[in-house]
């Protein structure tokens, strides 16, 4: 039976610990705030012999993901971590990792992209990579960041999936704040993730293979992409069964979407990441005042859980979507677009209001969330319409 101990630690420290418990063969990384301490912690584990990983300090994130791709193709269990500009610099290789079906696990400390330069939290980095073919998990807390890292390993390496997984946590808010976290014992994690059995590994000298060969005009490129789509679709089932198994092990619930107060909610906010905590706090207070407020937190962004989301929102009178990322020129932020699309087949049309908030770490004050719920109450009462492109709290 699994034993757990409660620690007070930063999100980055427990992500590093989860990686150690998953025993990767290779880690290649380059420092960037606020990811840095994940890799520094991990380097410390390597130096002390607490994990036997080939740890490579490379000269850029492009090299980091390239080294991960090479190692994964060779048959290794591979992990890395990055943030913001680092993720942007990996862009080429992100597509190679998913296209070659390499189950790399990467932590991403969500941080705004330049310019102008900013080191604080938003989801612009991860959302910019949302079509790169990676499974994407988001954490609200350090606990979820820890849990997601372990589940990510199982999801990525499942033979029905074989896709890289990005496990996101909010820069500084989650990466650097000290939180209460329950950590599993090493043996239980090792047993849960199991040994990685690579397919088509380069180091299998009895079965020589080439990865990434030309698949141009008339070649199987189109079919490769459909195979990737099929794998992403299959990952839904795998994510849910891995989540169920992990819940049993850890005693902590897991859902691709997680709801609070949605049984009888009139108004609901859909949100990703650490802001879910602020929203839940406000919703709880509003409930005491008689407002039927609910919240739906999205924990898996790719594959997007549209059926679960639509089910969670059925029966509400007005929905707000909080996006911590822009999609300039689109009808709203990336989450807004997904949520509205997920609701398209609903029997009654629910008004959906989009809000952009917290870009570059701009403060997410409780009054702002209260304002959103108050807007929703007006929309639900029919006295207001969703206003487009609201920059919540912009001066």
């Amino acid at each position, binding site marked *: 039976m699994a034993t757990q101990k409660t620690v007070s630690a930063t999100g980055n420290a427990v992500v590093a610990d989860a990686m150690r418990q998953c025993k990767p063969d290779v880690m290649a990384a*380059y*420092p*960037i*705030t606020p990811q*840095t301490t994940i*890799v*520094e912690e991990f*380097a*410390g584990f*390597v*130096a*002390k012999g607490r994990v036997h990983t080939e740890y490579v*300090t490379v*000269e*850029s994130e492009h090299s980091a993901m390239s080294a991960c791709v090479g190692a994964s193709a060779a048959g290794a269990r591979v992990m890395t971590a990055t943030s913001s*500009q680092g993720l942007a610099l990996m862009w080429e290789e992100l597509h190679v990792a998913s296209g070659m079906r390499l189950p790399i696990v990467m932590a991403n400390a969500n941080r705004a992209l*330049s*310019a*102008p*330069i900013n080191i604080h939290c938003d989801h612009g980095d991860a959302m910019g990579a949302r079509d790169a073919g990676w499974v994407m998990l988001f954490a609200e807390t350090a606990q979820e960041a820890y849990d997601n890292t372990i589940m990510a390993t199982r999801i990525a390496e499942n033979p029905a999936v074989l896709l890289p997984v990005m496990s996101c946590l909010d820069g500084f808010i989650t990466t650097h704040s000290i939180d209460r976290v329950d950590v599993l014992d090493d043996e239980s994690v090792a047993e849960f993730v199991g040994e990685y059995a690579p397919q088509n590994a380069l180091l299998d000298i009895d079965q020589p293979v080439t990865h990434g060969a030309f698949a141009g005009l008339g070649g199987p490129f189109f079919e490769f992409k459909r195979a990737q789509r099929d794998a992403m679709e299959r990952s839904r089932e795998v994510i849910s069964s891995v989540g169920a198994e992990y819940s049993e092990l850890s005693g902590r619930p897991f859902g691709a979407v997680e709801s609070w107060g949605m049984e009888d909610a009139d108004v609901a906010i859909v949100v990703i990441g650490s802001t879910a905590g602020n929203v839940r706090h406000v919703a709880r207070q509003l409930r005491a005042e008689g407002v039927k407020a609910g919240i739906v937190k999205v924990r898996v962004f790719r594959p997007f859980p549209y059926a679960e989301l639509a089910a969670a929102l059925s029966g509400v009178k007005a929905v707000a979507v909080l996006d911590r990322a822009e999609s300039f020129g689109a009808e709203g932020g990336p989450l807004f677009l997904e949520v509205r699309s997920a609701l398209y087949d609903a029997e009654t049309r629910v008004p959906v209001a989009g809000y952009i908030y917290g870009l570059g770490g701009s403060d997410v004050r409780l009054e702002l969330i209260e304002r959103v719920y108050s807007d929703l109450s007006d929309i639900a009462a029919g006295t207001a319409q969703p206003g487009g492109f609201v920059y919540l709290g912009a001066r």
Partner: protein
Amino acid sequence: MPKVADFETALTPTWCPGCGNHAMWRALKETLEELELPWTDFAMVWGIGCHGNGADFFRCQGFHSLHGRALPVATGIALSNPDLKVIVEMGDGDGYGIGGNHFIHSVRRNIDMTAIFHNNQIYGLTTGQASPTSDQFMKTPSTPGGVIEEPVNPVGVAVAQGATFVARGFAGDIPHLKELYKAAIQHEGFAVVDVFQPCVTWNKMNTFKWFRDRVYKLEELEGYDVTDRTMAFETSMKTFHELTCAPDECKVPIGIFYREEGAATYQDDLPQLKAPLYKLAEKPRDISKTLESYGG
């Protein structure tokens, strides 16, 4: 012409007290004043790192680029206005690691600009990880078992790749550094100035004292010939990876390693720069006469 005080902004530098960046900042401001460069005649570009935070502290035409990408941005600026003196400030991680390819190709191009490297043998801004110029075996939070690789030898690489101006300075000797800056900015071609810039917070090995005990000036070395590329290369090879040795065992040269006057620059070989677009577009031309000849 701007004076030293004119280069300052409303912000006080946030560099740590005692950091070598303060001295480099002062040396460059004084150099610019002494060269009597009008505001309009030069532009600065920074990479990302502690050095790059200088973008906030220098009042001038400037661009704060991305980590590793200062040289390509500067190349664009230099080619769109070839009359500008372009001065680029980079870090050792920034310029020799993540942006190392741009370093080699800028040397190869001999593009007319000045490249200053704040070489503190560490990633300062991200709090103290090993950089491409950290000494072998150095222990840092990213390399608790010690650095495995040999450091980059920036002077040697530049000299070997055919650079036309290569110098190394020390933030602990401002008058000397200013002479290097002046020569580099006035040089026609790609001028490399690698500067030992102690990071007092994270690099506890290569301190001001460490360098003071070891540096000597090439111009004081008998028989040193700055036009002899082989001599420059040999000198760079003798000293670059001895950063852990005792003061009496190794000495580290600073000064101009190599200089070649009159070599063609990249700008020289681009015929379209003889009449750059910004000059052609300078005055709106009256074309009503021409239109009249077509009947209005």
